[in-house]
Structure formats: C-alpha cells, structure tokens
C-alpha cells in the first residue's frame, strides 16, 4: 500500500474515533472565559480561544461528532432509497423507467446544494432538518448510478435463468443484481461522505445548519471569517479539521475506484 493511502486511513480512523468518543470524553465545550477572548494558540490551548473566550480545541473535537453523524445518516438513507429506486425503475423499464428518469432529472436540475439550502431555509434550522434536506439532495446520485448498472446487467444469463425458474423479483434484485453493482455504489458512497461533510459545514456556514452553541465546523469557520483581521486562528482550526477529513476520504475514494476499475461516479458535482 502507498504511504498516502495509509495516511488517509489513519486520518479517517482518527476522526471516526474522535467523533465516537468526544461526547463522552470531552467535557464542557461552551465554558466562557472572557479573559481569554480572542487569545491565540498557546501551549495549553493549541487552537486558541474564540470571540466568547471558549477553547477552540475541544469544540473542534465535538464538531467531528456532528459532521460524522450527519454524514453517516445522510449517506445511509441516500444509499438505501437511491439504490432501491434505481434498481426498481431499471428492472421494470418502459414507462416506469421513463417517469423515474424524469423525476431524477428534476432533482438533478437544482444545482449543487441549492435545493438543500432552500429546504433547510423553509424547514428551519436543526440537525433533523439538515438530515432531511441533504438526504433529499443526495439520493439521486445513487439512483442514477444503480439504474445505469442494473440496465447493463439485467439481461445477463444468470438473471434470465433466475427469472425462468420463477424467482420472485425481490430475490432476483437482492441476490442476482445487488451483489454485482455494490462495488461502484461503495465508491460512490465514499465520495458522498466527503460531499455531505462539506455540505453540512456549508449549511452551518450559512447559519442554516446546527444551531449555536452546539459546535459545528461550518459555524465555527463562519465565526472565524467575521474576525479574520484580529483573530485568523479562529477559522484555522476548524478549517484544518474539515480539510483533513475531506481530503483523506477523497484520496481513499480515488484509491478504491482505481483498484475497482470504476470510472468516476455520478455524485461528483
């Protein structure tokens, strides 16, 4: 294995551990200490203090929990709904497929995270609404991918045989189609995790995500950009955290795709 791959695994693994443990290990993250207002990094607090005199370090660790939780749920929901939808319309074909493709086209017509922004705006802020908004945007990528994959294998002999033997449709999809399309879906899901982490931070950056005082990387970066002139360290810590996990996941995704010989997935937008 290449050094870059090992490093990526270590980075992602560390963040996952932090995300799982920080709610139990990291104590109070909202303690206000007005004497330390805007103080820069020091040996006791390597990421410095923010505009309320809160220690940024522990807040970054707790922010990992928010990011990873959102990413986990959104990608899981999207994979289940998207894959089911994609296999279903490809299997039945004809009018079902035609309508299904139009539905996907409509969702894909909202550029980037615009629909998520609009949904989060009308639903109101909060973790649950972020989950809903991002899932509504993300499932389409998996639907498009699994539809294309299913179309390419549904006429293979083993599927025809299963059909001739009277195997129920559900069983055919689960046992004869799903295992063959799972590799590209895993690659797609890897990139989707990175994309969702960025999207969640983006919504929080716009003030539409997780609400204060709960620490979230996007919200912390937003606070940091307000005080860029006097305290640039405020955006630096959470920025590095976000960047490190996203680049590690993307590098792993690239590696995974290359080893599975899959062209870049449809989610990349």
């Amino acid at each position: 294995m290449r050094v870059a791959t090992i490093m990526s695994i270590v980075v992602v693994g560390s963040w996952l551990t932090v995300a799982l443990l920080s709610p139990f290990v990291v104590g109070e993250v909202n303690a206000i200490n007005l004497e330390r207002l805007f103080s820069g990094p020091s040996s006791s607090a390597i990421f410095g203090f923010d505009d309320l005199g809160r220690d940024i370090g522990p807040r970054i660790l707790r922010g990992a929990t928010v990011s990873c939780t959102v990413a986990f749920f959104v990608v899981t929901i999207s994979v289940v709904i998207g894959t089911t939808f994609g296999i279903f319309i490809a299997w039945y074909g004809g009018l079902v497929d035609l309508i299904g493709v139009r539905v996907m086209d409509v969702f894909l017509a909202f550029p980037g995270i615009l629909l998520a922004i609009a949904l989060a705006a009308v639903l109101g802020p909060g973790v649950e609404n972020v989950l809903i908004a991002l899932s509504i945007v993300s499932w389409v990528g998996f639907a498009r991918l699994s539809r294309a994959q299913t179309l390419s294998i549904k006429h293979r002999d083993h599927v025809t045989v299963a059909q001739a033997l009277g195997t129920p449709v559900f069983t055919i999809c689960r046992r004869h189609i799903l295992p063959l399309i799972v590799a590209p879906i895993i690659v797609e899901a890897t990139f989707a995790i990175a994309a969702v982490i960025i999207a969640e931070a983006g919504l929080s950056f716009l003030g539409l995500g997780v609400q204060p005082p709960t620490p979230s990387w996007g919200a912390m970066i937003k606070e940091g950009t307000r005080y860029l002139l006097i305290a640039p360290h405020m955006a630096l810590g959470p920025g590095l955290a976000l960047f490190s996990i996203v680049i590690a996941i993307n590098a792993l995704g690239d590696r995974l795709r290359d080893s599975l010989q899959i062209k870049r997935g449809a989610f990349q937008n």
Partner: protein
Amino acid sequence: MGSLAAHRLVTAAIVLLGVSSITFFLLHLVPGDPVEVMLGESANIADRAQLRAELGLDAPLLQQWMTFHKGLLTFDFGSSLYSKKPIAAVLAERIPWTLILAVASLCIAILIAVPLGVLAALRPNTLWDSVAATVSLLGVSIPNFLLGPLLIIIFSIGLGWFPVSGTERITSIVLPALTLGASLAAILSRMIRASLLEVLSEEYIVSARARGLGALVVVGYHAMPNAALPILTILGLQLGALLGGAVITEMIFAWPGVGQLTIEAIQRRDYPLVQACVLVISFAYVAVNTLTDLVYARVDPRIRMQ
C-alpha cells in the same frame, strides 16, 4: 437533428415544470402557518389576512399552483415582502453580477485546468502527473467557504493585492472567481487528462506525429477537438456546482449577486423571493445544459449519427 433538438427541448420543458412545482411546494413545507412565520407572532390579524390573500394562500392548492405558474410565464414573481419592490426588478439588478462572477470563474477554471490536464496527459505517470493529481485532489477537497477566507488572508490582508470584498475595483472579482473556480478547475483537469489519454492512443495521432508535426499542433488541432465531447459534458454539468457554490462565495465576498440575495431573503423570511432566486438559478442551469447538448450535437457529427 431536428427531432433530436425537439426531444431535448420537450425533456427540458418537463424538467422545468418539475423544478417549478417543487419550488412552489417549498412554501408549503414551512412548518405551521407560513404567514405567521413571515410576519412574526406579533402581527395583527388584518395584516395576516392581507398577506394570505396576496400570496393566494386561501385558495385551493391546485388554483395556487396554476396562479404561480401563470405568473412565471409572464415573469411576474409577485413582490418582495421586505422591500415591497417587484421581485422581477430585484432579480434584474442581481443577475448580471452572478453572470459576471460565473463567467470569470469559468475562465479561471479553464486557464488552470487546460495546462494542468494536458501536461498530465502528455507525461502520464511522471512527476508532472503526480503534481497535477495532487493539485486536483486539493482543489476538490477544499470547500469554497474555506478557500475564500484563506485567499483573503493571503492576498488581501497579507499581500494587499486584492480588495477583501465588495465590487468597487475591477480587481475585486479575482478572489471570488478563484474561490468559485477552484473545484471546477480540479475536476476539469482530471477530465481533460482522462479524455486526452484516450484520444492520444488513436492511430490518427500516431500518423500526425509521424508526419513530423509538433506536439503543440498535434494536441491543439488533432487531439483536443476529439477529446472535447466528454470535457464539454462535464463542463455543462459542473456549471451547476458553480451556480450552487456562488451562493456561499457571494456571501463571503459580499458580491451582490443572486446567491447573496437568496441568503438575504432567507434571513428575512422573504419566502417568495427565496422561491424566485431558486427558480432563476435552476432554470439557468437547465438552460445551459440543454444548450450544451444541442451545440455539441451540431458540432460533433458522431452524435448526429446516433
């Protein structure tokens, strides 16, 4: 050709109808009473009733949907709840700014991606290739709300080359365009590399080289036009990410475009304006993609034959 164009246009029309319907229903997703959310709890009953009637919320859903779409056909989006100005006029002020930003970002992305992608394709599996791959990995991994502040720290605060934000000077556009164009440049350079590599192994490239043509001529005249199709497709699709990303980038740099307007409208709970912004951005995206499809069907005979 004619039927292809007709088919593409009909598809686009159906998609646009779906987009406008979803946007229409956004207002109905507001938890509780949207009128109360927009006016606040302290608003008196007469004001609420008036707004409800203005937005047509007391009519049956189907009739509301019809009114909404009738308005769209005549560019009548109603008026903004905050400024009371007609939404169409507000949008007309903002659209040119987003357009300028999008075009500038596209140019920057192409300027970065073409040399990077071509170099990587001409020297695959060398140091150049690794450098290009690393730059592109950095580009896709850095979100614009991180790159923007970073560029401000380095080039505005540190070096003082460009203004921090606003639109007063012509150089104001450089940092927002770079922020918005970075991820597009990254994806585009990968696409150019992959697409060129495929074409470069074709026989007509070998024969062009054998005729003694220089690398620049071979790549520019023989390889690039043939590799352009997948690159154009990606460019069209990625324009969506560009337009979506414009919302965040315009916020960072106080760029007075549709993206900033969207967020302002959200903060003021001016939902009709939010709907109009979402529609304009999405419609622009669909229009660009439809145009890309039609244009390269004209340009590339291989598509017309299919």
